[in-house]
């Protein structure tokens, strides 16, 4: 609750009768506080819902400001234990086809849920490039051994700097880049089977 409302009406609202009128006034103001908080919270939620309708508020991240632009420059160290090549923005120029860039972490539960979909895409030959966000190398390697490795390249963003440049809201988050390396689509949240079928496959076809 960001704004604790300033709902302190002037103390001592005339109250016929009791001798303790100022005390009662303060009591009254205090008893209004829950209502004030609830109203402020409700107004905030209403603004969120309105925003979701008009597209100005999106809990899964606003359509990225980066859509239609090239990826911000970065060069990340590799995850040695996984034996994958390192990942830098220069790898995103002159691609054979559209690629996905996936921000993930071993500590993130939705990442497990989306992982089978990433594995499937990678089996089908779609290039999935990974950025491992705020994670320990050993944990990340464990995750990949256990759930399988869909990534063609993998950069470690342990401080989370690159994620800030990309405007990542939280992990998992997935971007689709066309063959020219231009960001075309962003998805904050797990790539569920529905997202795969309804969003990613059409986009892959369109940008193929």
């Amino acid at each position, binding site marked *: 609750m960001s704004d604790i409302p300033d709902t302190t009406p002037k103390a001592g609202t005339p109250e016929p009768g009791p001798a303790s009128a100022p005390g009662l006034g303060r009591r009254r103001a205090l*008893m209004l506080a829950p209502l004030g908080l609830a109203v402020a919270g409700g107004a905030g939620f*209403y603004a969120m819902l309105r925003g979701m309708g008009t597209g100005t*508020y999106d809990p899964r991240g606003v359509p990225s400001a980066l859509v239609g632009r090239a990826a911000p420059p970065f060069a990340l160290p590799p995850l040695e234990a996984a034996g994958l090549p390192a990942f830098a923005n220069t790898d995103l120029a002159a691609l054979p086809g559209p690629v996905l860039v996936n921000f993930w972490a071993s500590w993130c539960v939705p990442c497990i849920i989306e992982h089978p979909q990433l594995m499937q895409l990678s089996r089908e030959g779609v290039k999935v490039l990974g950025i491992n966000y705020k994670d320990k190398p050993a944990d990340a390697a464990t995750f990949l051994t*256990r759930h399988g490795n869909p990534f063609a390249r993998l950069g470690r963003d342990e401080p989370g700097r690159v994620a800030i440049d990309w405007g990542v809201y*939280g992990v998992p988050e997935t971007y689709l880049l066309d063959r020219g390396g231009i960001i075309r689509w962003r998805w904050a949240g797990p790539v569920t*089977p529905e997202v795969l079928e309804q969003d990613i496959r059409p986009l892959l076809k369109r940008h193929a």
Partner: protein
Amino acid sequence: MIAELGHFALALAMALALAQSVLPLWGAARGDARLMASGAPLALGMLLACLAAFGALLYVFAVNDTSVAGVVQNSHSAKPMLYKLAGSWGNHEGSMVLWVLILALCGGAVAAFGRRLPSALQARVLGVLGLVAVGFLAFILATSNPFNRVWPPPADGNGLNPVLQDPGLAFHPPLLYLGYVGFAVTFAFAVAALLEGRVDAAWGRWVRPWALAAWAFLTLGIALGSWWAYYELGWGGYWFWDPVENASLLPWLAGTALLHSAIVVEKREALKVWTVLLALLAFALSLLGTFLVRSGVLNSVHAFANDPERGVFILVLLAIYIGGAFALFAWRAPSMAPTGVFAPLSREGGLVLNNLLLCSMAAVVLTGTLWPMFADLLFQQKISVGPPFFNTAILPLAVPLVLAMAAGPLLPWKRAKLWPVLQRLWWAALLAGAALALCFFLAGARIGPALGFGAAAWLIAGAAADIIDRIALFRRPSAALSRARGLPRAAWGAAMAHAGLGVSIAGMAGMGLATDKLVALAPGGSTTLAGYEWRLDQVGDVVGPNWTARRATVTVRRDGATVTIMHPERRFFALARMTTTEAAIHTTWLSDLYLVLGEEEGGRAVLRIHHNPMAPWIWLGAAFMALGGGISLSDRRVRVSAPGAKRATGAAGAPA
């Protein structure tokens, strides 16, 4: 046909709820006994209609009626019957029907077992419950009809998310809703008290069993959810501070505070306004959770499908119920004079401290949960608040709470001295110190777990000290047994619940010492962890009702003797094209051996082996807490008497 009957039953329930919300309240305002008496039969009728609707919903899922949209989206003929039935409440529409059914059960219980409540109070409570039911039935009928048909019907359904096909998760929502919706009754009592402008000891006595029952169910529901996360997600973790988990923790914290402050109202007629506010808050936070999960305003794995339109509808309901109740509170509460004087150091003082700490925790969790959303809205900042924030902010509040928890029940009412209490607790403090030292000795310098074990010993020994003191075990041993028999069940229940929290904390501390190891083994190969030898015997194929799996056989030996043979699986659900891991868990109650099968490559299978000391204690402790609540509920003072007159409460009517 059955689906239409279900739909009709919902409409009928709506009509009855409408009558239930108008007639008794009107009668109570005019002092008309006949109108007031209409509340109970209307509530029972509404319960029957809701039962019929829910029965119809179970039926269409059981027979896999693919002309019903909900079945197509969430079920499949090849699913085991348990999950077909659980699937009926595993989705947004069905879960709302369950929600309303439980609300109707609560109303029915107030109607059936609350006959000895003052008739105006009973009428007002039933009226408010009817009002809540009207809103949610309107929501179901207008936006979320579970009986919508599809034409032409597809050959079969799409199946339920495999991660959700699990016995633990089948019963997680009903328990959770019993908790959430149970707080609707305390809410109704609070609103009725505000309408009457009167809160007295009897009110405290009537409210407390409802708060207890709701709290016990919520405790079980949260524990079951956490247990599911532990064994199904296959991580070894048990709590992730996910916004939806937090949404269930918030009413639990407020409810725990309510439970304790209602005692003060009952015994001492103090903290009345505060207790009314807590009763409103507990339900407000339950509704907030419902809103957060179903409106799509937050980004979480648990959230139901995004739908801003439903969100607006729920928000309007929240505005009516929460806004209305708080407005009523602001209007009526100031005139309720504070009564009951007590010294800061007294039983009342201890309970106030309890309330302050629990409410601070709730404020921390609420802030951490909502802040990212409001920061996004107000400052267009995308931030995430994670476990580091919650752990750091909760710990300084948890430490004094635990310290005070053992001492509180030993304090006398009105005015207390600290010294006699400390005298009775010295051996608990000694045990706590010993547990802390033992942990340092055995596990090395691990401050978190050591503190946890110390806290656990303190709470369990403190609860024992409370009972020992009450039955005068050492002062007059000969009479101790008869005193133990005569001790109110509420005292046993409180000690049980406090010790239960100690048990849970021991489990969490043990999990802080967990070790794990990742190995790739060929059949016949073996490894060691935590003093056990783990040998992979073979990996084979198995076929289930709606999945196929790879299953490993692992023999665990210790000192040459076989401890257990474990079978972790990787299940592949063809319909959902999803793989789930089924961890194999062998528990010795002092620790869990936890085994997950990973990918296979070149004839070797990857195994992740966990040794989780004390892990089962986390949920065992929660079960103790809920059991403590149950024992308290069976107290004959709660069942039979009320101050002044012989009156029963709805305690026995806690929906089971």
